């Protein structure tokens, strides 16, 4: 590195976080800057500091100084290039951006001069390039552009305005530069050279052009001069900049001078977590201690020595790290939820904390389970702890979020962002669009991008291109592919994280700019949760969990229909029915243990106590699976192999999991014990194993591990085993505390299903989509467990599924929400109207509920929901028959007659009548109909005094000439219009034929011996190709007796790919595997089966 290398600092660079205006990631800019020998670089993204944390983090690693600034759009159309010189300047910049963003719709906003005047302190203004104020003043024919620059001097101060020069080999730009030099001389302003960087290397110009075309909704062909005229906006070496500005050396020298003035870095953010308001005379820690002590009594009772000791240890550390406010704030949110009856439970590493348990934030006892507190909070890590709260998805979670907003103010709390990046399909679609490929072609291509989780070596974008019929030998197609790959992972736009909330003492908008989210009432920060974490900003995750909503709904339904009060905190532990169900993998619809892999593990694991469930939840994860830890654990559990430990010192850590590490904590403890890692070092190890895993970092840690183990005198063979255990935990695995939290929910769901099936099933059906199975499978499973499901009925169904009493048992009535295409407002209008008076006829329904469209009526009729309109309870209403005319067949006076009429009504009758009732009369008869309406009036207006039945012409309610639907037609109609049926399973209709084919019902497989050749058949309800299964495909075939599990080898799958993927019903012949209660069929032959035309949905491609 020569001395020359430092003669220039790039002070105007945009990253891809300028969203479609920059083509390089902040990290790439830093890497290139480092390569070129810069010692500092400034990032000025458009209207924000979106990329600043990543830029800062990368610069820190590279040993560069990262200056922060932004290009701020003015209401006059140009952009101010502002650099934060001090913390005040940065805070002003954030506030400026927040102000402009929050007063405009999402994605828009501009600052006025007044805004600038108010927030100018600590900011340095460059006059910018093509889009800067000087260029715009000059181009717009402003009579005296100098006077406008004088105004900038007034706003920012003479020493804080620099006349910016950029040289991109452009005539017009050079003319502007000469004018700028002249003006600078006149106004005695310093010159500063920049390169207006939009990409790191010249090659990225193509990406920049793609983005420009996308931004303007053009193709490259039609973008014309909107594109860059050349590829000069890249980071140029200082030497090259020196050559370019040889005539103006002061412009280069000033870059160093200005850089030296920019004192602010993101390290100096000034973030402070809010203090929790405590009663007078209390401190935060004393208040926390009190709340903890109160909670501990409830949780542990008096005199629990271990718990007291642990609590004291934790509280001491909390006090030392000044985190008491954080715990109190989270406690406050939980308290609010409890008060409001919102189910809430902490998850993640917070479950390792006894304080969290005592405060009611988490539900798992870390003392009892001996969980590692350091995994949650460590003095060495120097970062905030992470508490995630699970809330019922939907409105309840929103209420909790709004509570936080209200409590800390709109500028004191905001959601974290979620940066949406270009991925396979979206990248191909966007690039194809600007290259001029037609939409249909792109649709075909993107539809080919695999949705399987498993991707074999050939499952690449290249292959998808070939499959879509693209010839990669063609340069244009090749370019398409290259560019698609080039824009992968570049930011596309900013979304909102599902639940991450950041809270700040004072004004959050001085720490990071805030902007409106798409969702009304939401405010989002410009950084994602990792950025926030990296900069030490505390985040509370309020996550929506479908199962929480199910549990909450179940509890309500149990209260209403069973007359029992169930509390999740007081469920009977070790309920035998629950464990019986778990042991035989009867887990359809249960939380976390319903997947195919879980089901095949459960009979082997044979859970008998809660901790087994914790293991079960944690073991079927990519980490243990890839690390080959599942089979050793199960074998040891079944006594098929001895329990051994890599080193005797690890026995205390691994004893509970039979010598096999399954949880993150165990790996960390192994590192701490075997290699002498400190808690902080262990946390580094966890991060290295995390999602953003770096090979290089892993190598470094492995080296450190080995050194540590050498020091501890661990033998090479044991070292190898330990290193293998740790490093093979390559993918994500659960922390024990998290698994325990989830296991609690799994247990609760199993308990409710076993004991309150109707309530649980209704709640599950009302919270779809969630879980692993489609509603049709859930229904059939519930039926097999003895629950009666009732069909959709316009005379009885509510919008959600409800519980009805059927004799001495409870039954679930399918809700109107399952009628596809039926809008909720129309359904609710019908329910409302029905509540006021029953519908005596379809005509009456059509007239009184005008919200219902014809297609909705037709669908209702097709699923049989209108079969019971006008049934006896209405007809028997006192006086009804006498008030109505005598010609209508519904105006019967005896139950017998009414019963006969109802008996004769079938779906096609309703369809026939709906077609007439919903058909507009046309202009000729409009008047006649309206006269009829006036005379009949709605019975709602004056229920008792008005005639209840309109004077209908006899033919309108007559029987139809149509034949009733056949069972097959009903099945097709049910599945087509509701996705489920409460009638017989389609396979049941074909059982006799299947018996003739010697097809075994799913329920019979358990009775057959291992290795026997069998035939099974059913509807394919799940098709899986997991990423960890080496190309194996797992099918679940459902028949009327249960679900048969099929294993398809990769070779067989390749042979029958189309059939496996497309056919709804399959007959499979293969070898039965019946081991340890796990039953599956290894397929050898696959045949499509023509059972029904019913479109049974399959949950595919997990």
């Amino acid at each position: 590195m020569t001395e020359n290398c430092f003669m220039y600092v790039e002070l105007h660079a945009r990253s891809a976080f300028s969203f479609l205006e920059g083509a390089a990631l902040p990290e790439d800019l830093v890497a290139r800057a480092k390569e070129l020998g810069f010692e500092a670089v400034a990032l000025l993204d458009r209207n924000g500091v979106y990329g600043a944390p990543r830029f800062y983090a990368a610069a820190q690693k590279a040993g560069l100084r990262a200056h922060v600034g932004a290009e701020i759009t003015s209401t006059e159309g140009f952009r101010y290039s502002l650099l934060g010189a001090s913390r005040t300047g940065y805070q002003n910049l954030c506030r400026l951006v927040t102000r402009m963003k929050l007063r405009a719709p999402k994605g828009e906003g501009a600052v006025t001069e007044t805004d600038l005047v108010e927030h100018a302190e600590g900011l340095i203004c460059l006059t910018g390039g093509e889009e800067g104020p000087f260029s715009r003043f000059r181009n717009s024919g402003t009579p005296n552009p100098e006077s406008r620059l004088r105004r900038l001097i007034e706003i920012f101060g003479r020493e804080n305005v620099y006349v910016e020069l950029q040289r991109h080999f452009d005539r017009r730009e050079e003319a502007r530069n000469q004018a700028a030099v002249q003006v600078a001389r006149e106004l005695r302003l310093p010159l500063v050279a920049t390169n207006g960087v939009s990409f790191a290397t010249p090659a990225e110009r193509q990406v920049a052009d793609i983005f420009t075309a996308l931004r303007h909704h053009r193709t490259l062909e039609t973008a014309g001069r909107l594109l860059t005229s050349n590829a000069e906006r890249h980071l140029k070496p200082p030497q090259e900049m020196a050559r370019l500005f040889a005539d103006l050396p002061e412009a280069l020298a000033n870059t160093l001078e200005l850089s030296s003035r920019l004192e602010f870095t993101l390290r100096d953010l000034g973030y402070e977590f809010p203090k929790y308001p405590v009663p007078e005379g209390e401190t935060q820690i004393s208040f926390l201690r009190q709340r903890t002590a109160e909670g501990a009594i409830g949780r542990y009772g008096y005199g629990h020595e271990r718990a007291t000791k642990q609590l004291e240890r934790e509280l001491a550390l909390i006090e030392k790290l000044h985190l008491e406010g954080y715990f109190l704030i989270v406690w406050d949110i939980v308290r609010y939820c409890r008060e409001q009856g919102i189910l809430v439970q902490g998850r993640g590493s917070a479950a390792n904390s006894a304080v969290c348990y005592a405060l009611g934030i988490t539900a798992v006892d870390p003392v009892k389970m001996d969980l590692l507190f350091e995994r949650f909070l460590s003095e060495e890590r120097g970062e905030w702890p992470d508490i995630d709260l699970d809330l019922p998805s939907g409105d309840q979670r929103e209420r909790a979020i709004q509570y936080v907003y209200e409590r800390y103010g709109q500028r004191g709390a905001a959601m974290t962002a979620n940066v949406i990046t270009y991925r396979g399909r979206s990248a191909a679609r966007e690039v194809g669009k600007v290259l001029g490929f037609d939409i249909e072609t792109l649709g075909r291509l993107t539809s080919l991008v695999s949705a399987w989780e498993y991707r074999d070596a050939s499952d690449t974008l290249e292959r998808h291109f070939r499959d879509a019929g693209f010839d990669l030998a063609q340069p244009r197609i090749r370019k398409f592919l290259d560019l698609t790959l080039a824009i992968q992972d570049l930011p596309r736009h900013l979304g909102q994280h599902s639940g991450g909330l950041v809270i700040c003492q004072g004004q959050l908008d001085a720490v990071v700019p805030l902007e409106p989210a798409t969702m009304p009432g939401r405010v989002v920060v410009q950084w994602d949760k990792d950025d926030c974490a990296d900069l030490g900003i505390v985040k509370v995750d309020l996550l929506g969990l479908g199962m929480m909503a199910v549990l909450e709904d179940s509890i309500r339904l149990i209260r209403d229909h069973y007359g029992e009060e169930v509390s999740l905190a007081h469920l009977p532990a070790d309920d035998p029915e629950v464990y019986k169900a778990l042991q035989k993998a009867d887990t359809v619809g249960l939380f976390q243990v319903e997947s195919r892999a879980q089901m095949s593990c459960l009979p082997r694991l044979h859970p008998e106590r809660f901790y087994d469930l914790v293991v079960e939840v944690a073991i079927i994860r990519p980490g243990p699976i890839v690390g080959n830890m599942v089979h050793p654990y199960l074998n040891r559990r079944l006594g098929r192999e001895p329990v051994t430990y890599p080193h005797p010192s690890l026995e205390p850590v691994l004893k509970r999991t039979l010598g096999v590490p399954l949880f993150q904590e165990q790996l960390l403890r192994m590192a701490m014990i075997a290699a002498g890692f400190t808690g902080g070092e262990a946390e580094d190890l966890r991060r290295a194993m995390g999602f953003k895993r770096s090979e290089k970092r892993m190598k470094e840690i492995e080296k450190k591990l080995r050194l540590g183990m050498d020091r501890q005198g661990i033998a090479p063979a044991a070292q190898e085993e330990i290193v293998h255990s740790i490093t093979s935990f390559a993918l994500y695995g659960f922390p024990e505390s998290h698994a325990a939290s989830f296991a609690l929910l799994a247990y609760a769901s199993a308990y409710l299903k076993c004991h309150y099936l109707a309530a649980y099933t209704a709640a599950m059906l009302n919270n779809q989509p969630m879980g692993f199975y489609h509603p049709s499978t859930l229904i059939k499973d519930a039926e097999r467990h003895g629950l009666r499901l009732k069909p959709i009925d316009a005379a009885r169904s509510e919008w959600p599924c409800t519980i009805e009493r059927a004799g001495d048992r409870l039954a679930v009535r399918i809700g109107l929400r399952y009628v596809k295409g039926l809008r909720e407002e129309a359904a609710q209008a019908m329910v409302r109207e029905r509540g006021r008076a029953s519908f005596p006829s379809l005509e009456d329904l059509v007239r009184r509920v005008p919200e219902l469209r014809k297609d909705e009526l037709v669908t209702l009729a097709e699923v049989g929901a209108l079969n019971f309109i006008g049934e006896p309870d209405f007809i028997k209403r006192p006086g009804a028959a006498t008030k109505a005319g005598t010609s209508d067949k519904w105006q019967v006076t005896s139950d017998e007659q009414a019963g006969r009429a109802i008996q004769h009504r079938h779906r096609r009758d309703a369809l026939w009548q709906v077609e007439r009732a919903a058909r507009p009369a046309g202009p000729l008869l409009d008047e006649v109909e309206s006269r009829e309406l006036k005379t009949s009036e709605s019975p709602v207006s004056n229920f008792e005094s008005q005639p209840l039945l309109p004077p209908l012409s006899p033919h309108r309610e007559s029987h139809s000439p149509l034949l009733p639907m056949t069972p097959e037609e009903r099945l097709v109609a049910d599945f087509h219009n509701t996705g489920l049926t409460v009638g017989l399973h389609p396979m049941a209709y074909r059982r006799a034929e299947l018996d003739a084919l010697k097809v075994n019902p799913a329920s019979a497989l358990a009775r057959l011996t291992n290795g026997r050749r069998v035939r099974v058949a059913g509807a394919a309800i799940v098709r899986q190709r997991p990423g960890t299964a080496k190309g194996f495909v797992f099918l679940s075939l459902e028949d009327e007796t249960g679900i048969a599990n099929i294993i398809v080898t990769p070779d067989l799958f390749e042979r029958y790919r189309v059939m496996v993927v497309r056919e709804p019903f399959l007959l499979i012949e293969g070898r039965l595997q019946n081991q340890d209660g796990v039953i599956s069929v290894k397929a050898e032959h696959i045949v499509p089966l023509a059972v029904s035309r019913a479109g049974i949905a399959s949950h595919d491609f997990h």
Partner: protein
Amino acid sequence: MTFACLYIATFPVQAVVRLELELRGRAVIIVEPEPPPSRVFALNEAARKAGAECGMSQVEVAGFKGVEVRRRSHAAEASAHAALLDLARSFSPRFEDVAVDTVVLDLAGLEALLGTAEEITQQLAESARKLGLDANVALASNPDTARLAARGWAGITLIGEGEEADRLSKLPVEVLAPPLEMQETLDRWGIRTFGALAALPAAELSERLGQEGIRLQRLARGGALRALVPTEEPLHFEEAMDLDYAVAEFEPLAFILGRLLNQLCARLAARGRATQELRLVLGVDASGDGSAEESQKLKVESQKSRINSQKSIVERQESISESQKSNGSSKDPSHCHSEEPQATRNLAVPPISEARFGMTRAHNFCPQTAKVEGNTTFNFQLLTFNFFAPRTPKPEPRSLCLPVPTQDPRLLLKLWLLDLEAHPPSAPVLKVAITAEPTWPRVAQGDLFLPRAPDPQKLELTLARLRGMVGEGKAGSPELLDTHRPDAFRMNPFEIREPVAARSRKSRVESRKPKVESQSKIENRNSKFGLPKPASHEFRISNFEFRNRLSTLNSLPRIPNPEPQTPILLRLFRPPLTASVEMQFGHPVRVDSAHVRGSVISAAGPWRTSGGWWTEDPWERDEWDVAIAVVSRRLSVVSYPLSVEGVESRKLKVERVRCYRLYRDLMNGQWFVGGLYD
């Protein structure tokens, strides 16, 4: 009344198989034609049995063994359709072209000619088979029943009068092709067959499905609903002539063209049409013997006699037309042929009626000097005859687009002659065919208040002459392209806009003013839409832009800066001058080209542009604005001493200093002098 219907099932498949006979009997799948051909569009029964379905992707289809996959061919389908119509026409003059795959024939009165109705259906099926099409043939007492039966049943179906409803009752309702919404309703009702639909009470059906429902029901009941709509002869205007002897000279070819155009225009006029687009296909002798020489001869000859002959031929054509009109013979050229003595007939032109059917006789050609109407004499040379070798003409198509529709054969002839001069056929001509796309004639009324625009036809003629002189695509209205690519423009056809009759007088006055947008207006508009300033060939370059950075380095004298307001004009050299440029320290110091030569005394640049990277024609260039001391060839006095270190001083006599634009094509490294600054 008896009607027969021919229906070609899986028409797209049969259309392709018809041209690839080896595919007969095999499973064939037709996929969409546009790349990527990923979806199955049509398939035959064999392919269906193999498991394929419409809508499958090509990837899925690839899994089926023994299935042939072809792209959909519109040409093959058009050809199959034409064959189907020809077949119908050959049986009955009264037929209806119902759909691309369906034709209905009225068989009334054909019994005496072709046998019984049953025999006719057999013959129809057999004839279709000979055309490579497997047709379903149905016979019924009304056209719709015949059509439905043919669509519903394979092979031959005979339905007697009175038994329509009964016979049709088992057909699925899809055969009726009801509107999609109605199809869905019927499906929901469980109405799957004609019989079920026919059985519904008509009044209640009408209440639910309206008149369309009733219509379908009547069809399902086999009731006659309509009369046959005979297919009209399409508006197809084509005149063609097969020549027994190859024409190798311009004059006779022109004469043939004239005759064909006369006929074509007369036919257009008779149908109240004009044409705006013509296609000429010259079938040239593909045998190759002496073709090049003949072509050259044709070309040279055509060049020689271009002006005179065009004029004379056109005049002669006019006189022929006139004479035909006067003696009433134009309606029947063959009649003219029979009356006129052989030697005095219109030279080598066969009668049109014969020519159309390829019946031209050799003796119609009269290779001798002849005197024709209008007293214009042509010298015709002997043509090459070859009586024995049958020749297959190779088509050479040309097309002609006009700005306005016309029926004027004279104009058309002139245009074609100009076109043929510019693009003479590659070999002697064996066949001439002209096709005119019919359109409505132009109706225009002059405007009292507007200056008269040039006659569009004359203008087109002038442009055609210009094109002939300067080359194709080099005459018209230039349009600058929105791109950074320097000097990018395209030539658009020159158009004259029709005056708008309703335009107010004020607007007419406004319209006379030259429409020049002010620069600021354009810039404002562009900046509003985020566009940069428009490029122009007339660059306004301020003195700042012309500042010489090289001069700051090497102390060269500066070019006197023009006033900032003074525009500098750039004259582009077309084509640019290839140059050799000597560089020192990355700057040009000397330029050598055919017309510009000298030392660079001052230079600004490089101005770099690049783009089109996604195309097959990317560009990247560095431009320099240079002041060159243009020297005389005699080296003598030093005018501007070069003092750059390392640069050799030269003694040159400077005649004048001029500013040029140099550029280097970075794709190949070649230097050019692009233009001169005035």
